[in-house]
């Protein structure tokens, strides 16, 4: 009964070309009798032409037999096809080549590219896994999956209403993913979009918006970070220290290069890199520092370069209390060529005061900065002793270590070096790790240390 009714209904389905109802019919049919299937497939093949399909389509109407079988196979399986396709093809390696292969397989599978919207959504989702989310060529290839000229509106009514909304949304989402990953589309993208969706469609608008705003904000960052950061940790530290020091006179010293040693007992010891930066003015400031007041090694402080987080340490002192502070008078004989102090009254008006009415924050001077991948006290001690060669005053000044154990757990990159950390560090640092919550202040007996340095 149901079969015959469905068969009767088929012509109307053919006219509308709605595949959903068709599938419904087919399921009904299949449940009732198996003999009907072949008949249905024939009708189904005739139905395949879409109402809005382009004139190119009818040429490829005859469907090969093996295609028919494949279709049957696919239908027997679950509805989840495209995710599965990615998993099946790229079983061992996930690379650009395999991604392209999957797209090619999809393109070859069906002349009509049935289910291309679902495929593109699945592909967009899989892109980070294949690490192709920043490849323009891949986006263009994905855009190429859309059938051409089918979704272009042909008359004003189609243009007025949202023509093929599902497909347009898919196109917009593809462009949005490009935008989110900072990929600038090129002329090929534009040509493809015009071919697929037409001149004034939503994806085309999205393209125009991207091309309007991206160049405007391209060089807006005053502290640019290269897309590809240097792989060597010493180079990376060099780059980031010059960035944060913001001083052209500052000199970078590599106190220790990273290398791995083998001790007699066969234990592997990794020596961390220590890179420091100090400018002449900082050295001068440190030389004038009162030796009775301690200096502090503080850290680690985070520094983000795009998506990598680095940590740096700072050698600093507390601000002087206001009663100790002495204004140094200018010595007019220090420089005879240029006057060091100008006391000109240039007839400033009442409103010419352009400084802000805020109290200056005095946080104490910063004497030096360093970067290391191993922020325990022993390593930083090496840095201080390296600094001591150029700043002899550090031998007399007490040095306090205010090391924050907090962020070290968050460091994902350097877990291996942390694991080896407790074996080698001194008991003081170990005690500090047991209480990661509070700031650990370790008073060094500086006399002993400086004596040790001098030996």
């Amino acid at each position, binding site marked *: 009964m149901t079969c015959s009714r469905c068969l009767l209904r088929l012509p109307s389905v053919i006219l509308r070309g709605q595949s959903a109802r068709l599938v419904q019919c087919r399921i009904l049919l299949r449940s009732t009798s198996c003999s009907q299937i072949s008949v249905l497939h024939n009708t189904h093949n005739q139905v395949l032409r879409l109402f809005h399909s382009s004139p190119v389509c009818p040429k490829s109407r005859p469907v090969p037999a093996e295609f028919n079988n494949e279709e049957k196979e696919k239908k027997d399986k679950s*509805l*989840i096809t*495209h*995710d599965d396709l990615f998993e099946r093809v790229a079983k061992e390696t996930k690379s650009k080549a395999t991604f392209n292969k999957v797209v090619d397989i999809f393109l070859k599978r069906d002349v009509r590219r049935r289910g291309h*919207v*679902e495929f593109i*959504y*699945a592909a*967009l*989702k899989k892109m980070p896994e294949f690490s192709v989310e920043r490849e323009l060529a891949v986006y263009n290839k994905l855009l190429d999956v859309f059938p051409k000229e089918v979704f272009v509106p042909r008359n004003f009514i189609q243009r007025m209403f949202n023509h093929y*909304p*599902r497909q347009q*949304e898919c196109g917009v*989402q593809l462009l949005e993913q490009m935008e*989110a990953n900072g990929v600038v589309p090129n002329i090929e993208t534009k040509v493809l979009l015009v071919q697929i969706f037409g001149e004034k469609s939503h994806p085309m*608008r999205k393209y*125009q*918006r991207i091309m*309007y*705003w991206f160049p*405007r*904000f391209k060089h*807006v*960052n*005053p*502290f640019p*970070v290269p897309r590809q950061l240097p792989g060597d940790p010493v180079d990376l530290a060099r780059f*980031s220290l010059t*960035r*944060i*020091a*913001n001083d052209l006179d500052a000199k970078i010293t590599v106190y220790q290069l990273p290398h791995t040693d083998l001790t007699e007992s066969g234990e592997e010891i990794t020596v961390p890199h220590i890179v420091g930066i100090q400018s002449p003015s900082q050295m001068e400031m440190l030389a004038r520092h009162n030796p009775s007041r301690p200096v502090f090694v503080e850290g680690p*402080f*985070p*520094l*983000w*370069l*795009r*998506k990598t*987080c680095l940590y*740096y340490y*700072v050698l*600093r002192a507390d601000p002087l209390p206001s009663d100790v502070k002495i204004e140094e008078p200018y010595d007019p004989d220090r420089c005879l060529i240029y006057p060091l102090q100008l006391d000109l009254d240039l007839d400033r*008006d*009442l*409103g*010419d*005061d*352009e*400084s*802000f*009415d*805020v*109290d200056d*924050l005095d*946080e104490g001077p*910063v004497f030096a*900065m360093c970067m290391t991948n191993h922020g325990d006290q022993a390593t930083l001690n090496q840095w201080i002793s390296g600094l001591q060669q150029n700043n002899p005053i550090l031998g007399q000044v007490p040095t306090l270590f205010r090391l924050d154990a907090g*962020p070290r757990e*968050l460091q994902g990159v350097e877990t291996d070096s942390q694991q080896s950390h407790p074996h080698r560090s001194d008991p003081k640092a170990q005690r500090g790790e047991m209480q990661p919550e509070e700031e650990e202040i370790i008073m060094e007996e500086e006399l002993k240390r400086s004596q040790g340095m001098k030996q």
Partner: protein
Amino acid sequence: MSLPKLTRLPSARLLIINHLHQQLLPSITPLSVPRRALIQGKYRRPGQPKEDKFPWEGINFDFSKGLEGIKKHFTLLKKEFYDRWVGPEGKPIIEHMLEQNRVIWEFRGAESLQHWIVSSDKEIGGQSEVYLKPGKNGNTCFLYGTLSSTPPRDGETRYSGYCTMRSKQLLASFDRKKHYDWSSFNTLHLRVRGDGRPWMINIAAETYFSHQKDDIYSYFLYTRGGPYWQDIKIPFSKFFLTHRGRIQDDQHPLWLDKINTIGFTLGDKADGPFQLEIDFIGVSKDYAHTEEFAYEAYKRNPEI
């Protein structure tokens, strides 16, 4: 953190809310239609039931609260009244005329943090955390937390991962809206210390129509990182119009006579801890800057 959590919408929405029409296939990304709500109410998470309460049910009719309110509002009213006699905005007229710059927010002590609201994507089901506390010597504001860009598993939200700090709306007596008038200045001046992450500054101005209430003018704030303070000057002409996290085609310069709030948003998709220390936020007059608007305001072809 005793700060009240934001109940309104966050200042910059980096997420896109999508409503699912039909879910055809369970495994693929939802075939979703970005639908714009007709009435722009507060964000309701997908699956969250509508609140079935009368508007007056959330109000606290406490007697002592009423007394406090009377005291507060009449003090404000008195101040408002007597300020007029001194000059515009409570300053002598000569000072007002010769003003070259003005410090709007200065962070001195814990009570200056009461003018700010922090919020994160927790409201939409995300996992970012943000906290605000006074800086090390109590003279700055220290915004810190963790960013996590994992979208909530509700099947509709596609993006997540933002942390925001926003100033509260300025209120006159009896909770009338008051605005900042910065029309004699042209540059925003900040002194910040960040950790190298890019932030976004959002300025919300008073609008006339209710559908514009999420219109926000934004610009980028790039931090250098490191132990030094960084003075940042951003001309107001650079700010571009956004609506609900989307940059608008029709750009318009920011009108400075009625500024409601300023906000800082982080959403750079780099998961991990972040920090931003702000010393002060001020406005200044930069005579060298004459640009009115940095973006094209004429009719473009193609008009996008």
